[in-house]
């Protein structure tokens, strides 16, 4: 069975380490905040200028001047810092964020990522994604393994305009958890009940399959 969005978020959350500063993109990455493991504290960076993003506000706390990069109203946790966009991207560009999680349309075996534009169809802009992928050493990309029509999104070479070149080293799809290294995807884990064959079939890029590919497990 392919992972649900919640399971994907849960799996990504296992990569969090105590003391990590983390930037979570819009969509599935945002859900990761709901699955932070016990005993682990992470500080969420929102690129509009907030380090230490807290929970959504109550009706009473609601404040138009307190939003996250997804433009949602949020709160700041005790010990948060708020700053300008230039300072925020100084952090990001300077490599101070420990982990970035973001979605994508395509990823390829060279670690290239395309996530911001589908020519002729969708031109909303890259927002902070290009800065995030260029600034971080540690990026996890979340996406479905293939399109609705069954076309692989893990390619030999991205076809869409890139967001960043050679910057992605880990991908979590609804079918598998993979690393990207030396020009290939390495299959590290598979979703519960998903066969290696299905993953092979739906991976267009070069895929290295180790002898043993453990199955992910999730609590009920």
């Amino acid at each position, binding site marked *: 069975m392919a992972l649900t969005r919640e399971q994907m978020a849960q799996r990504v959350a296992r990569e969090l380490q105590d003391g990590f500063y983390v930037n979570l993109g819009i969509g599935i990455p945002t859900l990761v905040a709901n699955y932070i493991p016990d005993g682990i504290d992470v500080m969420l960076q929102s690129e*509009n200028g907030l380090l230490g993003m807290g929970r*959504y506000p109550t009706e009473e706390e609601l404040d*138009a*001047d307190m939003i996250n990069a997804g*433009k949602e109203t949020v709160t700041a946790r005790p010990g948060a810092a708020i700053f300008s*966009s*230039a300072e925020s991207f100084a952090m990001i560009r300077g490599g101070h964020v420990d982990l970035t999680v973001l979605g994508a349309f395509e990823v390829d075996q060279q670690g290239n990522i395309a996530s911001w534009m589908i020519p002729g169809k969708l031109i909303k802009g890259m*927002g902070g994604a290009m*800065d995030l992928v*260029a600034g971080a050493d540690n990026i996890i990309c979340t996406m479905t393994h293939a399109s609705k029509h069954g076309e692989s999104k893990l390619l030999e070479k991205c076809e869409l305009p890139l967001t960043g070149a050679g910057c992605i080293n880990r991908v979590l799809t609804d079918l598998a958890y993979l690393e990207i290294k030396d020009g290939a995807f390495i299959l590290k884990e598979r979703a519960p009940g998903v066969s290696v064959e299905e993953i092979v079939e739906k991976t267009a890029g070069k895929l290295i399959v180790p002898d043993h590919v453990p199955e992910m497990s999730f609590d009920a």
Partner: protein
Amino acid sequence: MAGFDKRVSSYKEAMEGIESGMTVIAGGFGLCGIPENLIAEIKRRGVHDLTVVSNNCGVDGFGLGILLEDRQISKILASYVGENALFEKQMLNDEIEVVLTPQGTLAEKMRAGGAGIPAFYTATGYGTPIGEGKEVRVFNDRHYILEEAIIGDFAIVKGWKADRYGNVMYRHTAQNFNPMAATAGKITVVEVEEIVEPGELEPSQIHTPGIYVDRIIQGTFEKRIEKRTVRS
């Protein structure tokens, strides 16, 4: 003394001198921390062929979005232009030129403009369409592209509190692009919620020192929320 009293008493006066064809840098992120009333005054004046530099272009009917209604903007530099149907239509019809710019690069271009740095290198956008036609250079085995500074004829900024000298503090995440925008205008106009006496703002806590600011006006704000999310 008159020399440092930057208060103006009307929005008309606040935007005096803006003309068609000018470049306007605007603070704000989404609808948060945007100079609502200064934008409305630009609409009222009917100036056109504007180049607008702003992270977003508002939404249909609010924020910079209202300048699209009478096609006052001919070019925009922004990082994200979703949430706006009229904008998308004008873009697809080539009625508006859009220079999509990575968010961090946009912030740094404004800062550089204000700081007398004509250009800087960044890894952001290298190997992507954003890097095309730009100089590529290697420092410490990494590729970077050259990005140039931006200066505006006007900068329009939304602050929280200011004194009449133009010292400004921003509230929460309504800070965003406003401090950089404030430095990068040949004429910088700041609208705020409250004007206080000089000395009331703690010197070390001023976000925008008055030297960058030409005009200050106190206004009232709708502060529309784009995505209202509350905890259940």
